[in-house]
């Protein structure tokens, strides 16, 4: 019987593959955090390549879509909205808002700015659903929901209250990060950009949380067949 114990390469380790995957994710998160600052066109040195930036964008979009299910309270297995429909719908909304941001503040849409907008949206989504969960018996969240709910109604009110709280938290975090970590001057343009980034993210999160699954499906149909055809479906 031949002895195979010596002279052959060891079998590939499953763990090293998993380790690589984890490092890949950590690196994308690092890129997103690096890019998340205000003002969005602050002169900083990019420590990532263009390819890294592109993959970080893709990673952020996947994360946003996954979080969209959490924000909506849909289960991925049983949700009416499919992953593709949500991704498409969100991409349309985000492109629209980013273009509006670029025109309003007269800034060129750079890689870093898009990543910054994605990161803001991710953080507002995380805070939104964590706040909603904590509102079970949390007097502050219940009070915010009831007070806003009295004006805006039982469905819109709580969603608006949670979005506003999440936007305020992310806005404060962004200012602290820009000031303490990126050593930016936090006034004037930086404040305006921070407001636009976080409020824009808030609009996306509120839209995602309230729209019915059918709207996302219709949006995809519209992307496939622009014009009157989609409005009659």
């Amino acid at each position, binding site marked *: 019987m031949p002895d195979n114990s010596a002279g052959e390469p060891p079998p590939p380790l499953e763990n090293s593959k998993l380790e690589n995957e984890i490092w890949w994710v950590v690196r994308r998160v690092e890129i997103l955090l690096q890019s998340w600052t205000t003002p969005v066109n602050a002169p900083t040195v990019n420590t990532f390549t263009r390819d890294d930036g592109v993959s970080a964008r893709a990673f952020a979009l996947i994360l946003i879509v996954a979080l969209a299910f959490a924000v909506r*309270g849909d289960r991925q297995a049983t949700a009416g909205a499919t992953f593709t429909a949500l991704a498409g719908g969100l991409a349309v909304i985000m492109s629209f808002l980013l273009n509006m941001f670029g025109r309003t503040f007269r800034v060129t849409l750079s890689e870093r700015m898009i990543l910054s907008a994605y990161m803001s949206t991710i953080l507002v989504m995380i805070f939104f659903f964590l706040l909603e969960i*904590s509102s079970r018996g949390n007097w502050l969240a*219940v009070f915010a929901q009831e007070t806003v709910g009295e004006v805006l109604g039982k*469905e819109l009110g709580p969603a608006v209250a949670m979005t506003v709280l999440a936007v305020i938290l992310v806005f404060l975090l962004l200012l602290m990060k820009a000031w303490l970590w990126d050593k930016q001057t936090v006034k004037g343009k930086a404040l305006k950009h921070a407001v636009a980034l976080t409020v824009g993210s808030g609009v996306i999160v509120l839209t995602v949380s309230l729209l019915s699954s059918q709207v996302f499906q219709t949006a995809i149909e519209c992307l496939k067949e622009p014009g009157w055809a989609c409005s009659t479906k």
Partner: protein
Amino acid sequence: MKRSLLVTAIVVAISSSAMAQTDAYCRRFESRMQPGQLYQARCADRDDCLVPVSAAIKKDENHRFLYRTGTSQPVQNSLAVVQLKYVGISPQIKPSNVALSRQQVNFGCYGWRKRAYVYPAISAEAEEMGRAAEVSYDNYDQFYRYGYSAPSDRSALQDFHVRRYHNGSACVYTDSPERAGQFLFERRNDVPGFFRTAWRRSGIQEAVGPALAQPSNDLLKYQRLHVYLANYQKRPDAAGCFSFPVQGRGSSIEIAISDVEENVRARTYGSSPPSWTVSVY
């Protein structure tokens, strides 16, 4: 002097309003009812209208049932979750939708100052029950177990939900695990806290964790599920009493009643509620 007169007038007005809200059937029959027992009222004007619940009921007709609570503790106000489970002839493929009805709740509390708030009735009368809003079983279970709902049924569930109410000693949250669990049909003592809810809602559990608990096959025998939220305001030296309509449907009806505050006080909120089976002919 004027101030104390005004306060007295308000107290008298509130008390008389509460008395006026007491169920007409309860007023008529309460003295003849045993605590913790379910009765049927066949009419409202004679003593012999009250019959034990073991009697069968007629198909396609509306019937009135009454329940009297225990007298052990001086809890003043309570919600009562009445689960009407209509047994079908053949089993369903998935649990049927849950229809939602609510009696008017006069002791809700709301806002910073926990001021009094009235939750209006929703499809509470017998003739309205067939038109009650329905939500999917999964969304109903998720709402009371985890505290959130998918957009498709969120509006109906939030309309139905009584978020806070005065139980007589404090303004309490219906969302608390010991109260929310009593709205569930199964695994009533499994209302998770913040971290388990976040884990599930984030979708990570679905992606990497063990399979989520599914509704049991027992639920498939019901062709219709209806949750009727009744309530009572206890008066001095009197037990709580409430009545609710039941439609004659299916082959039989299982009626489970959870007296929310009584169960919280007795710490029996995790166990199965008392239930009765009524056949339909």
